[in-house]
């Protein structure tokens, strides 16, 4: 349905998008994940024909966006980051305008009525857009994207600035629409993407650093199961004591976090439960075990780390196993 090959975009000397390639099949719901300024919006603006490419090709349902812009655009409903609304228009009036602009063939009144109900704005249809709250504006923009029932929906941060209730409503709506639409959704919040998308494309500094389904990605990123322990007493003694336990791969100290004790990251051999052994060893040395917990990193933290390091390193991180992620853990624990 959506085909992107070798896409690059340069603003002056700044390369905003670097050689991006992906293919999205009909009916897929794909999340673009990346920090602000990663190039998500730029890619979306190119997909919808708002911006040109510097290099590369975009085809929507077989229609190249440069050669057949009208055919391609007809298949896309786009909700930009800032909903493109005329503040001096009423909601209904605006949707009528979008309907005329897109030259939609469905009967006008029932089509717009249906969309108003779908995004739950039928109660504000006669209000001026400038008097609406952010959440309502967002939904009016969403309604505009849905007009003409396009096959492809491109939603740029559709839940930004909404309250939690509205976020859930919009998510449910996207979930429902995902059954018979191809959807690209962008967000800088991972849980958001996980809630609605099967496939995740992580974008950072204009490059794709990961493209996988969300379970795989979660798996890859959180494979690692280390333990965090806080133990009283001398650091060097305890390090050697812990290292001598069977089935422990590595131990490193995080230093003194609480007076009179030190924190340690303990990495056991894969699949071995060493918690009881650690307890016994600490007790046998006459020290106290203050804390012992799973040090599984939240996906949020991993994502943050991934997008903060260099792209090449991030790609490596995704491929390699536990070794390097331990480094990641130490840094993020300090936050």
């Amino acid at each position, binding site marked *: 349905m959506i085909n992107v090959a070798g896409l690059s975009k340069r603003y002056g000397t700044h390369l905003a998008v670097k050689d991006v390639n992906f293919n999205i099949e009909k009916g897929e719901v794909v999340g673009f994940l990346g920090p602000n300024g990663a190039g998500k919006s730029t890619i979306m603006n190119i997909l919808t024909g708002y*911006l040109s490419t510097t290099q590369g090709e975009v085809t929507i349902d077989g229609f190249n966006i440069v050669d057949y812009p009208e*055919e391609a*655009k007809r298949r*896309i409903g786009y909700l930009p980051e800032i909903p493109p609304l005329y503040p*001096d228009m009423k909601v209904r009036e605006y949707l009528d305008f979008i309907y*005329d*602009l897109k030259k939609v063939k469905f009967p006008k009144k029932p089509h717009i009525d249906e969309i108003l109900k779908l995004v739950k704005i039928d109660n504000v249809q006669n209000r001026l857009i400038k008097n609406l709250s952010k959440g309502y504006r967002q939904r009016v923009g969403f309604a*505009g994207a849905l007009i003409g029932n396009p096959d492809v929906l491109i939603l740029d941060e559709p839940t930004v600035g909404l309250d939690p209730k509205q976020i859930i409503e919009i998510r449910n709506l996207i979930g429902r629409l995902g059954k018979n639409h191809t959807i690209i959704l962008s967000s800088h919040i991972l849980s958001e993407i996980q809630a609605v998308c099967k496939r995740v494309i992580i974008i950072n500094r204009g490059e794709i650093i990961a493209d996988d389904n969300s379970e795989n990605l979660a798996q890859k990123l959180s494979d690692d199961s280390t333990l965090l322990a806080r133990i009283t007493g001398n650091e060097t003694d305890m390090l050697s004591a812990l290292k001598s336990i069977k089935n422990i791969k590595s131990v490193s100290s995080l230093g003194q976090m609480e007076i009179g004790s030190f924190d340690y990251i303990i990495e056991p051999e894969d699949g071995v439960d060493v918690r009881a052994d650690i307890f016994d060893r600490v007790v046998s040395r006459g020290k106290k075990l203050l804390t012992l917990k799973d040090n599984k990193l939240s996906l949020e933290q991993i994502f943050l780390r991934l997008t903060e390091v260099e792209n090449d390193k991030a790609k490596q991180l995704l491929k390699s196993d536990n070794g390097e992620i331990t480094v990641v853990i130490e840094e993020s624990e300090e936050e």
Partner: protein
Amino acid sequence: MSAIFKREFKSYFTTPVGYIVLAAFYFFLGLYFYMIFSSGSPQIGNVIIAMTTVTVFIMPILTMRLMSDDRRQKVDQVLLTAPVKIWSIVLGKFFAAFSVYALAFAPTVFFEIIILSKVTVSVLPYLYALLGILLLGGALIAMGMFISSLTESPAISAILSLIINVLVLYMSSFTSMITVPEGSTTFFGKIWEKIVSGFMLFLEKAAFISVSESFSETIFSVMDIIYFLSIIAIFVFLSVRSLEKRRWS
């Protein structure tokens, strides 16, 4: 095109802009009609042509938001990602502003009816003057629209348009500041003479005030009509290019 035309035209009257512009036009029209008619002249054409100056000063208000506002409020995203051609967006906007402008001269129909009920005169000078002022307005709208497409700020757009409008209106008066070199004997001297005098002729003839005045005379001039029409065409084209260019930068 019709969707954009309808929206833009309506927006002139959901904001005060349309009313202010029309009120200003009607005020001056009424004033000039009173002045010219009470001086004994039955020519509404003169009333209309007298509106040239007013048009030049009011037009920036009509065109300042035409393109700049879309960009400022990011609504250009909905226009440029809709399955429509860019020139139809531009033409829709042009005709919306033009229609408001044309409404400004609607009362002259009543003026003409009043005159015709009193004296027997030819309607042709009236129609010709009306055509002239509409073409002049069209040219100023196209120019203003292009300027508006260059900036995000309606205020900047208005000020720039005003400066340029005044320049094109009165550029004939700059000829008095230029002295044409005469009596040169060298080859290049003669060429320079030609260039300067040609430029002066251009300033004189191309100034909007000269062209619009020629519409108050009854001699029908195809050249003047083509002149304004080509200005409209050029600036509509430039506006399209300006929108397109934004995608590339």
